[in-house]
């Protein structure tokens, strides 16, 4: 009651202290995750069918960086060359002659692709769950993955043919573009359906599930009618993996994923407010339907960009955000970067395991990821008592 509102300091926990302690711990946790991602990236560059020593790995990366910079300066900024040449030391080439090709040519793009895919799927899942206030929502459950696979399957089965010819693109790019287009199309369709029935979250999720099944039916039909050779290719794509890694893919994805990340991170407070319900969010001055459209479109964009290169990668979009919510809470300012890094770490570690456990045979990354992620998630559920950082 108001007569007694003067803060009774002795028994009241100070909100200031709680907030500051929580923020510090969250930032430390995010920093620690970033260290984990970088370290596992470097370790992963060193291990594989052909072992490369730690020193050679670092030298290969360093040498290749310096060569790239040198070439770049030579070509575009010759005026800066003398300053560059004045640097008193150079990075020597690695001892093992093929180290640079293996590490920089093959492994690094794959590592980057795993990190970028992990980031984009995890932030997409986090934002979708936040927007729809539903813990079971992910790029998978909203039909996005099925639609992207349908697009890719269609591209594989009909072959490049006329359409690709018209678009003047190669077969590989054609698959990627089709996966991406169908991924986005599905989300527009889902949004449009739910829109015409009034934007409640449950109709949106339901529409997503139904669209997902329709596209799954399409994929099954394509599998059924296609020939053996293409079926194999189709299965490989549907299983998902980092086989499609290349520097051109990575260089395309880096800016896209980063932009999507910042666009979504900007909406962190609105996402927080949405957790109190649509009505409260509206009362707080947030245009809820616009926020939902914006968030869904951007997260779909991020996820389908990456899915297009990797094939179907499940689990991260669903579990990454869950695990992070358990550890770091629901403040999207911290939750989005935390999920991004955790998603990257899980996918990178799983992919490294997938290509090394039975080396030289590669196993699909999904198998490893479901096992690692599943066990970790169960562990968290079981010891969930100590939830949170306060």
């Amino acid at each position, binding site marked *: 009651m108001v007569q007694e509102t003067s803060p009774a300091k002795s*028994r*009241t926990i100070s909100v200031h202290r709680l907030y500051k302690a929580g923020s510090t711990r969250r930032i430390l946790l995010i920093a620690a995750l970033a260290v984990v991602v970088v370290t596992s990236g470097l370790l992963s560059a060193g291990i594989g069918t052909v072992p490369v020593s730690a020193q050679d790995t670092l030298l290969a990366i360093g040498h290749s960086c310096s060569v790239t910079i040198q070439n770049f300066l030579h070509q575009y900024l010759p005026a800066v060359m003398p300053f560059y040449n004045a640097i008193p030391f150079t990075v020597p080439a690695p001892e093992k002659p093929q180290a640079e090709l293996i590490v920089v040519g093959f492994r690094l793009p794959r590592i980057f692709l795993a990190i970028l895919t992990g980031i984009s799927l995890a932030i997409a899942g986090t934002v979708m769950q936040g927007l729809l206030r539903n813990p079971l929502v992910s790029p998978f459950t909203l039909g996005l993955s099925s639609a992207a696979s349908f697009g890719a399957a269609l591209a594989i089965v009909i072959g490049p043919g006329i359409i690709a010819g018209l678009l003047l693109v190669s077969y590989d790019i054609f698959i990627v573009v089709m996966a991406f287009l169908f991924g986005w199309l599905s989300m527009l369709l889902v949004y449009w359906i739910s829109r015409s029935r009034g934007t409640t979250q449950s109709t949106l999720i339901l529409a997503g599930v139904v669209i997902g099944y329709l596209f799954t039916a399409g994929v099954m039909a394509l599998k059924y009618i296609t020939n053996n050779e293409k079926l194999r290719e189709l299965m490989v794509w549907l299983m998902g993996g980092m086989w499609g890694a290349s520097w051109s893919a990575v260089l395309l994805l880096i800016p896209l994923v980063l932009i999507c990340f910042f666009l979504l991170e900007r909406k962190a407070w609105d996402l927080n407010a949405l957790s109190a319900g649509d009505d*409260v969010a*509206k*009362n707080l001055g947030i245009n809820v339907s616009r926020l939902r459209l914006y968030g869904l479109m951007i997260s779909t964009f991020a996820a389908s960009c990456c899915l297009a290169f990797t094939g179907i990668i499940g689990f991260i979009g669903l579990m990454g955000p869950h695990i992070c919510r358990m550890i770091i809470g629901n403040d999207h300012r911290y939750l989005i970067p935390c999920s991004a890094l955790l998603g990257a770490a899980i996918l990178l570690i799983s992919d490294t395991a997938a290509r090394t456990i039975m080396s030289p045979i590669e196993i699909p990354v999904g198998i490893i990821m479901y096992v690692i992620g599943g066990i970790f998630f169960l562990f968290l559920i079981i010891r969930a008592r100590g939830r*949170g950082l306060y």
Partner: protein
Amino acid sequence: MDLVIENISKDFDEKRVVDSVSFSVGRGEIVAIVGPNGSGKSTIIKTIAGIHSQTSGMISIDGTDIRKMDPVDLAKMIGYVPQHFTYTLYSTVFETVLLGRRQHIRWSVSDEELSRVQYALDSFEMGEMAGKYMDQLSGGERQKVFIARALAQDPRVFVFDEPTSALDIRYQIEVMETMRTLTWDRGTSMIIAVHDLNLAYRYADTVLVLNNGKMAGYGKPYEILTPDCIRRVYGVDSFTIENEFGKFIIPVRARIPAE
């Protein structure tokens, strides 16, 4: 006059849910909206809170039409507490209350915002629960957190959609007493939809009776909420008693069929 509602009507799918309702709320005043289920109470509350817009009519604060105001500014003027509240498992009490400051926060949270959260929590004696998770609270405590969230918004007008529906009798009295004192002390206005007619009797300065979206009475609670009015609107027989604590209304039986 401060908050003026003039001839508000609201249609949902061609069906008129609220029909030409007019009333006004001054500073330090509490208006209770009563009426049977489906009479349009929530709709009026949500329209004032900026959750949906009216079909016709005007709502103004100090002479400014709220539909012409920036939603962000409106959010600083009107604090809303929903009937059914939503929360996530992983939010703490103070994080939920902090949401009330959304329009004052750009990215990081300043000490001033935190002080307001502290004040809102302390007003409901919930300071020691600041770090608890929402699902560790009882239903009544959660509802108080949501009311504290609206208080943290520091609005000119509070609009409450049955704020005491999930509270036991002790919490009901505590919350209503606190809100009445806050309304008086801070010169805010309060519009509250209630089912409990005795709460309207006890705390409201003015009562608005709704029936099928139309106004069926408007004025001082004792003058408006008479057994006759209750029979007409609810189809319930009732009587009033008066003792040293005040006047009370006791519903006794439903008339069949309701008139």
